[in-house]
């Protein structure tokens, strides 16, 4: 299958003197994390299917600086930001789509002040727009009637008020969208944000991802849908810790759509 993936780089576009419709910002997790790479590929398949003219930066992409900034290292963050902005501006990028809410938030909100202003979309928003424009069609397929609950990523939901796009997509699958008690504005963090992903938690009586997984499991879902590679890891670990991995799958919204179509 992978040989079918068309993933042009900006450098290639540049060489041909062309400009893509949108830049796909893959992000560190999407590039290197085994689980997240599957999300990346699912999204690429959908972009290919919808004939979206996109490109990636490839080896010219570098960490947005989000974890450094949230850990308090403003220097490192700004070094990363300024370097990335130079690359993006050199390619005259106007529109960016990313599957990582942390990259989304950072580029959308924190780059403009440093000279990088772009239209930034989370992949669920972008997929929704493809759908609305009729460039992509979703059929329920294998998820029809399945109980799916959506875990709001903090940096997509509360941080940027994006609640509907992922839900609209899930509903398009004709799945049964069930909400946790703590959802949308009141969604509980998966425990990964603010650079927590990269360290052990402080002493307490529970891990945050276990708490969140328990909340998800109370609504008895067949699938926990996520919209963030870090949430995905945390929830997957949580489901494993609860020994529920044979009953409950953790999947990104892009994977759901790609799988529904057997891409």
């Amino acid at each position, binding site marked *: 299958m*992978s040989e079918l*993936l068309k*993933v042009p780089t900006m450098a290639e576009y540049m060489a041909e003197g062309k400009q893509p419709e949108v830049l796909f910002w*893959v992000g*560190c997790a*999407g*590039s*290197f994390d085994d689980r997240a*790479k599957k999300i990346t590929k699912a999204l690429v398949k959908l972009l290919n299917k919808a004939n979206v003219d996109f490109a990636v930066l*490839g*080896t010219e*992409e*570098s*960490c947005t*600086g989000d*974890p*450094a*900034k*949230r*850990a*308090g*290292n*403003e*220097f*490192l963050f*700004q070094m990363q930001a*300024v370097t990335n902005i130079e690359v993006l501006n050199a390619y005259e990028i106007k529109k960016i789509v990313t599957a990582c809410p942390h990259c989304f*938030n950072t580029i*959308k909100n*924190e780059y403009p*002040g*440093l000279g990088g202003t772009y239209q930034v979309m989370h992949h669920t928003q972008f997929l929704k727009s493809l759908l609305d424009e009729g460039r992509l069609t979703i059929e329920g397929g294998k998820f029809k009637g399945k109980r799916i609950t959506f875990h709001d990523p*903090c*940096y997509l939901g*509360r*941080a*940027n*008020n994006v609640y509907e796009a992922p839900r609209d997509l899930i509903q398009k699958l004709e799945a049964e969208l069930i909400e946790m008690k703590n959802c949308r*504005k*009141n969604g*509980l*963090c998966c*425990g*990964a944000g*603010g*650079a927590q*992903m*990269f*360290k052990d*938690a*402080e*002493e*307490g*009586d*529970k*891990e*945050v991802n*276990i*708490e*969140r997984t328990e909340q998800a499991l109370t609504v008895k879902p067949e699938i926990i849908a996520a919209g963030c590679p870090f949430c995905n890891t945390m929830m997957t670990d949580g489901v494993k810790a609860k020994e529920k991995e044979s009953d409950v799958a953790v999947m990104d919204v892009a994977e759901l759509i790609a799988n529904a179509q057997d891409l």
Partner: protein
Amino acid sequence: MSYLSNILFALILIAGIGYFIRNIKKLIRNIKLGKKVDVSDNRSQRWRNMAMIALGQSKMVRRPVSGLLHVIVYLGFIIINLEVLEIVLDGFFGTHRLGLKVLPVSLYGFLIGTFEVLACLVFISVIIFWIRRNLLKLSRFWKSEMTSWPKNDGNFILYFEMVLMTLFLVMNASDVEFQALNSGNIISQYITPWFSGMDTSVLHVIERAAWWLHIIGILVFLNYLYFSKHLHILLAFPNTFYGNLKPMGQMTNVESVTKEVKMMMDPNVDPFTAPVEGAEDDVPEKFGASDVQDLSWVQLLNAYTCTECGRCTSECPANQTGKKLSPRKIMMDTRDRLEEVGKNLDANKGEFKDDGKQLLDDYISKEELWACTSCNACVEACPVSIDPLSIILEMRRYLVMEQSAAPAELNSMMTNIENNGAPWPYNQMDRLNWKNEA
């Protein structure tokens, strides 16, 4: 002789208001110890926020039970204060129920009747609040930061309200002339039987006592505010006005860092040449915050506004899973330290004498700071637009940029970003390898 009570009244009133103003001045001075921030943007949005969140209590009612009770107490408080206007004027002029002289009896009765009903509702609400705190022991009121003064403070205010409302109703009930009007005594008519058989002169003494205690009680309450979480009844207004308008996920970019980074990245700047003229004025700024003076004045206003309701803490993922971090405690610590700094200034003629203490470590521990996931649940939950996360971030900045005191795992994450552009030890040149992996 008859002027004696007017004079006494005026003196008490002046003393009460004078002391209050003195403390408010102190409060403003302390808040101004914070760094300047530009909040002059988006005036109309700010007014709207203040109207919705502070005046309209929009965020309070997200929790319906406490929200509704709070709205009753809040409305009661504001509306019953119209009655205080009459009390003050009566006190000054030595009149009795001045309102009756200027308003038709029916209107006066309607007003007082409304006040009585509200007073009764406030009384009931306050009792329910007390039960929630002390008998039902709602967990957010029993966290580790809610012992001693914060715990008592919460209850004192409730007792205060109970006493003030009772005094108001007793004052009306024991007022023979007012009861004789039989207009507006909706609630107090049921209290009069307590006094049946008493001599009119005794009733008069009771009525006068209730009157005096009521107004003195209000003045005491006014002056209690500065020392209490109840300061929010005033500060909620400026605080919601100056609250953050940007997306919650957006953290500030530190300007002084931007300057340095731009300089480092600029190929035309030779880092070894002497600094350009004027640059030496740029005193190397301290990065982040280790004490209250390093925070912005809005963050300090936040601290004084915090009503210690604990909605933030009860939504905090770190706190819910037993970590030491409590966003409410971050705000309480900031206020306590700011008060300490203020007292230091008072004692040393306005000059801060190093007391060997600071907000970091002496109040807020590193363990608390590193437990935060920056999820913004606390910010979302706060009914008065307080941003505890921004303080946590400033203190992390200090730890990392001034002290290189990040946890070891975070240091390796940052080294990875620095060396290979990803938080993990993968080579940047391998970033597109996924494309060809099966």
